[in-house]
């Protein structure tokens, strides 16, 4: 283990200090705005914290033998950490603060601290239960269909078949096309009097449906569109997983005379699990947080009947300018997601220690 020069150590200490100071000073000025006293407190706080971080790093790193220079990984991390601090950590802190104020367009300059009143308002919102239910339906149906269709197609593609590459290319289109183009195009296709969906429905004798006029139908149209958008991702992940399963296992099963369904449930599914679980967790979170589809379909002023939690927050914040209330809503959503992901990650055993 080479010992680091004093200059090197001071440089690292200084960089940690700068990152923390940027975070604290911006937080202080945007929330408390206490002038000179505020910035002195922020500086002292970041000095203490950066020094203790530095000492811990030094102590923990000295024992590790594979580094030339124990500070090297931290230097390498610095740019990315700075960006994430600016864009994630700071808005997060500010968001928690916002959720406890009555900030809106009218009280933009002088918001009052009202502590947990926004949270009380969220939980007594009569629309909350229906929105939560709609969000669960949205996430459940979408993710189920993504995985089911993706798996079905992946199994068809994982074999010798002339024209396989061509089909795979066509099937990936919904993932490849920019999302907003796909959504706007589907919006055109769902048009009540001219869209192709209603034309087809009329051919089989169904009356035209006002897809974009009635909130419930808008919601159904959004689900259909989002299923279309999402299955290629699951298909490609499942295909990657299937290709890594050895053929020998299936041949052994053939010799034992195992039925196709048993092969699927006893060989394919268990072996796909390590690949699919992370994809399903990620897919659920993405679907839960999907703003695009419903926003473009219903417009930012549309009715409540087609909204899920995230789009509701978007509307509260950017159409109705109820900033504090919207912030409280989004904190609750975030906690829900965090709990969900942690439970799934724990239960399924992905991201084990050894993997990192």
């Amino acid at each position, binding site marked *: 283990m080479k010992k680091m020069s004093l200059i090197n150590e001071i440089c690292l200490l200084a960089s940690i200090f700068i990152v923390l100071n940027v975070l604290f000073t911006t937080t202080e000025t945007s929330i408390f705005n206490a002038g000179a006293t505020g910035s002195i407190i922020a500086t002292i706080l970041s000095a203490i914290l950066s020094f203790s971080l530095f000492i811990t*790093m030094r102590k923990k790193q000295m024992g590790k033998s594979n580094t030339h220079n124990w500070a090297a990984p931290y230097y390498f*991390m610095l*740019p*990315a950490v700075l960006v994430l601090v600016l*864009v994630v950590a700071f808005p*997060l802190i500010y968001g928690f603060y916002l959720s406890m104020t009555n900030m809106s367009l009218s009280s933009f300059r002088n918001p009052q601290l009202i502590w947990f009143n926004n949270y009380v308002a969220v939980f007594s919102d009569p629309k909350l239960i229906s929105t939560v239910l709609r969000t669960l339906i949205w996430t459940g149906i979408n993710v189920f269909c993504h995985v089911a269709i993706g798996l079905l197609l992946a199994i068809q593609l994982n074999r010798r078949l002339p024209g396989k590459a061509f089909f795979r290319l066509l*099937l990936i289109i919904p993932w490849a096309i920019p999302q907003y183009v796909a959504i706007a195009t589907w919006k*055109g296709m769902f048009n009540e009097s001219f869209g192709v969906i209603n034309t087809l429905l009329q051919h089989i004798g169904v009356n035209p449906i006002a897809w974009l006029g009635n909130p419930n139908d808008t919601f159904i149209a959004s689900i259909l569109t989002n299923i279309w958008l999402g299955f290629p991702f699951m298909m490609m992940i499942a295909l990657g997983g299937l290709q890594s399963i050895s053929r020998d296992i299936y041949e052994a099963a053939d010799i034992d005379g195992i039925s196709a369904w048993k092969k699927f449930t006893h060989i394919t599914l268990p072996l796909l699990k390590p690949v699919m679980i992370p994809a399903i967790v990620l897919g659920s979170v993405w679907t839960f947080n999907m703003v695009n589809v419903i926003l*473009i379909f219903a417009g930012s002023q549309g009715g409540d009947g087609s909204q899920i939690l995230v789009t509701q927050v978007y509307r509260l914040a950017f159409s109705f300018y109820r*900033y504090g209330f919207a912030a409280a809503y989004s904190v609750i959503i975030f906690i829900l997601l965090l709990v969900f992901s942690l439970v799934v990650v724990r239960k399924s055993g992905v991201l084990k220690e050894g993997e990192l």
Partner: protein
Amino acid sequence: MSKFKANYFERNDSWPKIISTYLILSFFSLLTVFPILNLLTVAFKPGAGTFVADFAGFFQNFGIANFRDAFAMNLGTWIKNSLIISTMTAIIGVTVSITAAYAFSRFQFWGKRVGIMSFLLTQMFPAPMLLLPMNLILMKLNLMNSFYGLLIPYIATVVPFSVWMLKGYFDTIPKSLEESAYIDGCNLVQALFKIVLPLSLPALAITTLYSFMQAWSEYVIASVILRDPNMITLPVGLVSFVSSFGGMWGVYAASAVITSFPVMLLFMFLSKYLVGDLTSGGSKE
């Protein structure tokens, strides 16, 4: 006949099974291709005010008036705006990610686990949660309607994925290459830039392109931060064609064809590499 079958299909596939496979694949392929075909017919139908599926009339009413109209209506400015923002996002985002990915790939350090977890955690935030505070800060800093205001969140959205991709690729490069470079007198930074990066050009290219495409297609953040008609990016501009009353579907379709088909084809070409890395990262023992 059975010899023919054995040459092209799995050994124990029966004809009904082969036919059903083709039927399933064709059905879903039709579903994925149909909207694209519909978009094309509308784009080449002059004066289309609605999004009709008029396949029979495709050749009778063929014309490129919609494309001319699109460029007469600011499409050029939007393309320019999107090009500037997407290029800057890709370059800055990947540069920032390279060193972080290298640290994750090559070093054991205190805080590594927390670091990786927090990169993954950023994928979990609902967009409005970060967008709302960000928006208010930008309003206070008078950075609304500016490219800087958009650039920072865009970089942050591409960094976690890029780090993950590049880490996976760096892991495949043998460490012995760098070790021999150290013996020759290289330091850590030189080893990264002279040994590892030249070997990672394919991964760098894919990550850069992916980041570019992310920024090129982003709608929600741009719709909040950019309001000035001369500053908006392509997605915001195109959606405004179809959300305004009446809707200019022909012009929308033409602009969509010009601006998204190249990206789409590129993505289809790249998809194999993107997923390859995702699955190898997930299934590693």
